[in-house]
């Protein structure tokens, strides 16, 4: 009885031996073509290199802006200090009497 059961199990487990692979539907390419055509151009593929290039360009722009802002604000602080204004005032011969 037990042997019979084990024999059945073994036979079932071996039922996939020599199985042939299933073949894809013959119209797969036609269906794919339709779907590929339906993908919007922008959504198709953006090469990873181009993404990095864009990110680098944006980072460079932001960096340049920050550097320019820092430079300008430093210049403004120097030119607006009371000493600078006083020096400029007294260096003018009209005010220096």
């Amino acid at each position, binding site marked *: 009885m037990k042997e019979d059961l084990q024999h059945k*199990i073994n036979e079932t487990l071996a*039922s*996939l031996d020599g199985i042939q*692979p*299933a073949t894809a539907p013959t119209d797969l390419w036609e269906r794919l073509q339709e779907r590929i055509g339906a993908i919007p151009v922008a959504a198709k*593929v953006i*090469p990873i290199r181009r993404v990095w290039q864009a990110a680098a360009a944006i980072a460079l722009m932001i960096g340049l802006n920050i550097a320019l802002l820092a430079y300008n604000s430093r210049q403004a602080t120097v030119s607006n200090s009371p000493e600078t204004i006083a020096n400029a005032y007294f260096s003018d011969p009209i005010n220096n009497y």
Partner: protein
Amino acid sequence: MSSKQYQQTWNPIESPTPKHAAEVPVTDFRELVALYQHRVFNTVLSLLQNREDAEDVTQEVFIRVYQTLATFKGESSLSTWIYRISVNKSLDFIKSKKAKKRFGLIRTLLPENEANAPVVPDFVHPGVVLERKEQAAILFKAIEKLPEKQKIAFTLSKMEDLSYAEISAVMETSVSSVESLLFRAKQNLQQYLQQHFAQEREV
């Protein structure tokens, strides 16, 4: 582009690293599809055990391949990468189908829908030898009950005849884990079949 020219630029069999997808015209992608369509379909069909679903998911796999060729770094072979996409897409499909089933179960609780519950027929793989179809159907039912990873390892081994190393590359795990997964899968299948035949005898 002639096929000779194409082979000079990118041969999916010899070169595991394709050019960016944007540089791969659709006509060349056709060769890739022709090369892998049966392997993809057979894998997906074995995992989903339904022909219509397998046809849809096979399309999804190739659309995914087409869209993500640019991100393929060539760290694994092209076939490993495509197998991985096939497995992942199949698992995603199974998950979404299970979620739909759960929702459907709630609906079937309503009295008027009781008779409308769909009857799922036994799956018979088209490549099974005629005399073994009945036994294979029982085995596929048992495979369906296996835990996810065991099912993937067993399917890739039995249906696609992949080596342990190839399966480990597809599943991104070690060869020893694959060995253990296959060992446990066979043990579980034995148990399921024992229960099945015991129940059959009782009936």
